[in-house]
């Protein structure tokens, strides 16, 4: 197991190294306007002075090595446009707690609703009219097929502009960190996709598992239906999902690009949009890097978790005998 984990970690490091290098190369292709607050108003000499001070006129290998070195020390550079001269780590440090706060709430809701929904649907496939499964499927298909922008706007509108939302529940349209009520709609928006996602996959894997021979054997040996669902079907259905869960958790925590801008949440998701719009090269570079690292971590944790829950994945010496 330790060997497997070490191997996976090393591979992730290599992937990360490659991503960093590619990212560096891509950013060298960006126009230099992205390093200036108001490019039109600066003179040619001022530009050169600035570029020199940023080290952008140095030979590329030297720049690349410096980039690695900075990253190793946790230095992501300074913002040039968005908030001139402020360290990017500081900007992100302000934004990230908001995203994580909303993300955690939505994560709890999506797991708490999505997993039971999946189990309910799977169990309902064995009933006569499959009502639960059909209703659940309608929900999932709508969430998956309709562009998310549409239902986010619907949620926002229904929640804050209709009579029930506005007058009775008093939900505000935009996010306001000081007003707990304003958390409800963004969290709902953030959760709805994940609920459908968890429910869909859990249902699918549970239906798969329930038709397997070993479930038949468990029934034949007299295990009650509830215990079969819990001990055999759910547990086994969870294994293929385990691989994707860390990734989906990490991304939920990092905030959603769209939802955050819709509710004007001052979080990470909105930051990337702003950074790209304002062409803040260093900030874009740092954010892309963070998202890449999160993907890699998600996959890494997924694989490790998988190795823990599935005994068939073993990189140790084989003990069985034929």
């Amino acid at each position, binding site marked *: 197991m330790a060997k497997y984990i070490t191997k996976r970690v090393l591979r992730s490091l290599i992937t990360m190294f490659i991503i960093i290098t590619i990212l560096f190369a891509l950013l060298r292709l960006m126009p230099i306007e992205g390093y200036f607050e108001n490019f039109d108003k600066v003179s040619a000499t001022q530009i050169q002075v600035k570029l020199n001070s940023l080290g952008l006129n140095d030979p590329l290998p030297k720049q690349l090595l410096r980039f690695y070195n900075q990253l190793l020390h946790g230095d992501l550079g300074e913002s040039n446009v968005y908030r001139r001269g402020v360290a990017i780590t500081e900007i992100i440090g302000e934004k990230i707690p908001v995203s994580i706060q909303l993300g955690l709430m939505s994560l709890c809701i999506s797991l708490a609703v999505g997993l039971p929904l999946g189990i309910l649907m799977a169990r309902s496939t064995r009933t006569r009219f499959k009502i639960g499964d059909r209703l659940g499927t309608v929900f999932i298909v709508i969430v998956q097929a309709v562009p998310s922008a549409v239902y986010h706007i619907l949620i926002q509108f229904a929640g804050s502009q209709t009579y029930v939302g506005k007058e009775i529940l008093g939900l505000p349209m935009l996010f306001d960190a000081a007003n707990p009520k304003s958390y409800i709609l963004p969290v709902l928006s953030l959760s709805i996709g994940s609920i459908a996602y968890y429910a869909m996959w859990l249902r699918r894997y549970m239906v798969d598992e329930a038709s397997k021979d070993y479930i*038949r054997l468990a*029934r034949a*040996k007299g295990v009650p*239906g509830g215990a079969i669902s819990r001990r055999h079907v759910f547990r*086994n259905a969870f294994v293929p999902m385990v691989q994707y869960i860390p990734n989906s958790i990490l991304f939920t925590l990092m905030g959603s690009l769209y939802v955050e801008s819709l509710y004007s949440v001052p979080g990470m998701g909105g930051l990337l949009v702003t950074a790209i719009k304002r062409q803040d090269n260093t900030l874009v570079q740092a954010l892309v890097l963070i998202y890449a690292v999160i993907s890699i971590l998600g996959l890494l944790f997924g694989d490790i978790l998988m190795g823990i829950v599935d005994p068939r994945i073993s990189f140790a010496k084989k*003990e069985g*005998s034929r």
Partner: protein
Amino acid sequence: MGETEKNVILSVKDLNVKFTLRGQVLHAIRGVSLDVYQGESIAIVGESGSGKSVFVKCAMGLLDANGSITGGSIRYGDQELTQYQTDADWLKIRGREIAMVFQDPMTSLNPLKSIGKQIQEAVELHQGLKGPAARQAVLEVLADVGIDDAARRYKQYPHEFSGGMRQRVVIAIALACRPKILICDEPTTALDVTIQAQILELIKAMQKKYNLTTIYITHDLGVVANVAHRIAVMYAGDIVEVGSCDEVFYDPKHPYTWALLSSLPQLGVKNEPLYAIQGTPPNLFHEIKGDAFAPRNPQALKIDFLERPPMFDVSPTHKARTWLLDPRAPKVEPPAHIRSLSQRGGLSHD
């Protein structure tokens, strides 16, 4: 046989099972009656689709959701099993009274649970043991089924076992339930020929040790010859002949049994093509008129196409459902090689 014959442990009378498939009704079991006696070993033979698996599934409430018992009775002791509706009812039977060994050991174990835990599940359910005592019982049953080094094996997962070993584990699970009846649904079909005999020996030994009644389902007459006291031949959802092993092998009465025995490669004549039963089994979506085997039977009588034959008694233990046994029927001799079977010293198999 002898005195074991007296107590009927499972009695099936005129059982009918129908499945609904895409709006059509399939009559899978057409009025089967069979008594299973305490302590005996009976084999149900028949080709694929003859309904032998469906038949035994009825006794455990394991029919698929689209199938249902539409008539007849299954009595186990003083219980009428056809009355059972819910899973809760069936839990009184499954494992506790009747346990089952399935065909494919590669898929009948949960891949994510150690085999010890899977056996222990049965021990805890049916022997009322918990914790270390349950574990001890698991180790004992593992040793029983011939798995060495049980303490280490307890912790291993199914993928660490070979096919034959897995089938031993499946048998251990069935035994751990402490059932009265053990149903073996083609227990050796998925195994290497070399392993098959070992597994059959094991089942036989366990039957003796735990005083079990065993019901084998198989299409392999070699298996039957090895293990069974009695044979029931199934064709198209009906038992066409039932009798002791000797009676069915050496004095078969039903044309289908003749055909089945004739297709044994051991009875083939050198340099001649092996015998194959012509035609295909009837479509059970249609209601069958007369003797189901008649269309494939070259010697079929006129009445075979018109009316379903009753069960005729050949001897107190031997019955067959064919008009040939009616006193008015013309004398039709079984094929020559069937007649010579007894002179050849039976089936050499082992």
